[in-house]
């Protein structure tokens, strides 16, 4: 299925097909690789044991409220969870064809973040470190970022009436900036989470697949999904078995909306031309019709003048009567209307 041909928008107005194609092509030839040396995390789900140490560490580092059930209560894993406004990361348990598997969920810090692309107040920033962070101070609370995120990550403090905000993993941006590890990575006892430069992590992941061909499926999830993510995954089972969609495609959010955005200036550029054109044509038609009518009357008059006087006077009378009638109709209409609206007129 080819759903993501964002050039498909061309039809927005049949007229501008060529113009838009040119536009999109120019954007398409420009290629962006993301910040060089940006960081990422490789999550090897075959190593994850579901101990929830990462959840606990995340909670502490980000000073989130303590959960109802403690982090060493592993019964929590029995129900599938997602990130919420009080948990930037959660670990889920999956029954797979290769037995129980666990997977940590958090913001994947896309290379081309959909949330940032969707935000109409630039509240999200892709940092050179690789993290995607959120600035509460400009957020209006439209929640389009939540609609846009393919991974269903951003959460919202729905119960806050005054200062509701988006809550989402920051990849521990303050810690990375200090040269430290993100809280969850630091806490992982098995290095199921490997922190490093994304380019290196891709190599590490490839190496692991090469060394243990039986242990891994031959895919680095997040290498290309949604244009690539800073968090990448190695799985022992096909990704849907551990709750990761394999139908996200590789087009990034700005690519998906680029076509629609590209048509906007074309509308502004061409609609006035088209509409004034139509206006001018219809205007001109009116003018010609009027002119013809006038000429017809004149011609009739001229012809009549050459004719017999009787005929002339008859024609003149007829024309007069017509004129009179028209005036009468107009006057009558005005009188009728003013009669209908005595109150309004009075006020005026």
């Amino acid at each position, binding site marked *: 299925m080819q759903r993501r041909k964002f050039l498909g928008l061309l039809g927005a107005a049949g007229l501008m097909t060529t113009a838009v194609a040119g536009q999109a092509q120019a954007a398409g030839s420009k290629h962006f690789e993301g910040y060089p040396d940006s960081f990422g995390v490789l999550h090897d789900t075959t*190593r994850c*044991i*579901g*101990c929830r140490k990462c959840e606990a560490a995340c909670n502490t580092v980000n000073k989130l409220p303590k959960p109802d059930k403690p982090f060493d209560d*592993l019964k929590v894993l029995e129900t599938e969870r997602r990130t919420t406004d009080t948990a930037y990361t959660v670990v889920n348990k999956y029954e797979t064809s290769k037995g129980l598997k666990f997977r940590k969920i958090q913001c994947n810090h896309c290379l081309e973040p959909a949330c940032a692309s969707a935000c109409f107040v630039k509240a999200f920033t892709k940092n050179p470190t690789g993290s995607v962070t959120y600035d509460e101070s400009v957020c209006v609370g439209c929640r389009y970022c939540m609609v846009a995120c393919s991974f269903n990550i951003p959460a919202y403090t729905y119960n806050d009436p005054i200062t509701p905000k988006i809550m989402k993993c920051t990849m521990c941006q303050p810690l990375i900036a200090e040269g430290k*590890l993100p809280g969850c*990575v630091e806490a*992982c*006892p*098995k*290095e199921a989470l*490997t*922190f*490093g*430069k994304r380019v*290196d*992590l891709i*190599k*590490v992941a490839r*190496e*692991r697949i090469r*060394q*243990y061909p039986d242990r891994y499926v031959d895919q680095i999830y997040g290498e290309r999904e949604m244009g690539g993510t800073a968090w990448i995954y190695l799985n022992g089972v096909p990704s849907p078995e551990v709750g990761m969609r394999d139908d996200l495609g590789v087009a990034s959010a700005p690519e998906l909306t680029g076509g629609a955005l590209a048509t906007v200036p074309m509308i502004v550029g061409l609609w006035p031309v088209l509409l004034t054109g139509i206006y001018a044509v219809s205007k001109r038609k009116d003018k010609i019709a009027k002119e013809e009518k006038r000429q017809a009357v004149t011609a009739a008059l001229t012809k009549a003048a050459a004719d017999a006087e009787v005929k002339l006077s008859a024609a003149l009378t007829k024309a007069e009567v017509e004129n009179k009638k028209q005036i009468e109709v107009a006057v009558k209409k005005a009188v009728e209307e003013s009669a209908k609206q005595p109150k309004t007129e009075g006020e005026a």
Partner: protein
Amino acid sequence: MRADIVKIDAMKVYGKLELAPVTFLHDKHTDAVAKAGKDCKACHKEDESKRLSLTFMRLKDGSREEVKEIYHANCFKCHKEVKAKGEKAGPVDGECRLCHDAKPKTVSVWKPVVLDRSLHARHAGSKEIKPADVQYKDNCGRCHHEFDEKTKKTFYAEGKEGNCGYCHLTQAKTPVVKPGETVEKTIPRAIDAASHAACVSCHLALTLEKKDAGPVKCAGCHTADSQAKIKVLKEIPRMKRKGLPDAALLAAPYLAPMKEPIKEGKVLAVNPVAFNHKVHETVSDTCIACHHGAMESCSKRCHTLSGAKEGQFVLLDQAMHQQKSMRSCVGCHAVKQADPKCAGCHKVMPQRSSEASCAKCHAKPMPEEAKGQELTLEQKQAIATKMIEAREPMVPLTVEDIPEKVVVKGVADQYENAEFPHRKIVMKLTEGMKDNKLVAVFHDQYSICVGCHHMSPASKTPPRCASCHGKPFNPETPNRPGVKAAFHQQCMGCHQKMKNPKPADTACVECHKEKKK
């Protein structure tokens, strides 16, 4: 749920079928025929040598209409007869789609039969199956045969017995007759036709003679139930094939020497492998597990050094070393390593080939006898036998050499130091290796240490883990975990691979107690 479904689509050879193939239940008809007091000949004709044809009521296919008529006339005739007796009978003329059912409801539970070593030995040792000719001691020739192109007859060639499938393929080849050729080419029958003709007719004959015989009905061989009931010999005698070697010297073909000092003769391309054929016979069910295409030497026609069409261009080295193939030495051994008893060491660390591991098979140095000359088969076997006998048995480490307890220090502030029952674990691992011939050949004293102390040279005093595993995520060594993860990966990985669920991965305090605050 039947094992006796025969799809009758004989008309296929004449072009597109007009109706769906007939789903024919063979056993059901066998029973009905027997009940009517008839035998196989009611449906199958005998040829001049009194052998039953596998096709229905004919020896040779005629025209399309003829064959069609044979089926319709004979089927209907019998069905009508049965019906006349007032019994339940099959469809007759006009009820086309009762037989030609495009969506039959019957589910097939048919299973292929494997003539494994036990079953083979039971046939070879059977008193009812007599040798093919008085000149032979054994009865191999009753089944195994070769084909004589001149006489167009099969004959028994002693010492050349091979798997039926070598010639009788799953689907028989179509004969290639060049224009102008009138000679009728004989193509070996497909394996199903060949085996039914051979096995079932023999079983049938013996059954008629009221002797101990194998099954004759479909369900007798082709269901899981019946296969489970097949008697398995406890002690399986070796096959009696002439020239079956005890040991073989596996070596790449001879090449002219490259080095100056050896001027005369040819040399082996690589150091040869002394292969214990006798032991390997006992660990595999059939000969074709290894000899999958022919009984001869692998490198003779198929897996040559440069590859050959017969071997689908799989080179000799690949044929022996392919990880993924169960026919290769390495592939089969890798499966053995996946045994939970072995997997703790073998499946946790990445697989690595080293010079030492090559030398485990390929004798080093090259045996003196094999140098600079081409050897006969007997000479090779003798060398191999000698090499196998010379193998030293593995001497396990003495208990005293194994530290009893190892304390893992510097565990995160949340927990106490971990006390690791080192000796207990080593002993447990050693126990799993006992009495295993494969283990004995491929392991030495320190192999068991290397399972965990993986990168260091084999010794009684390997370096501490932390000397390599330091801080995690060192960009210089991206594949080397930090010390905490190294321990957890090693311990948990081994427990998981050896199917030892205790302690659970998340039972932190069972290895290191929680620190009191």
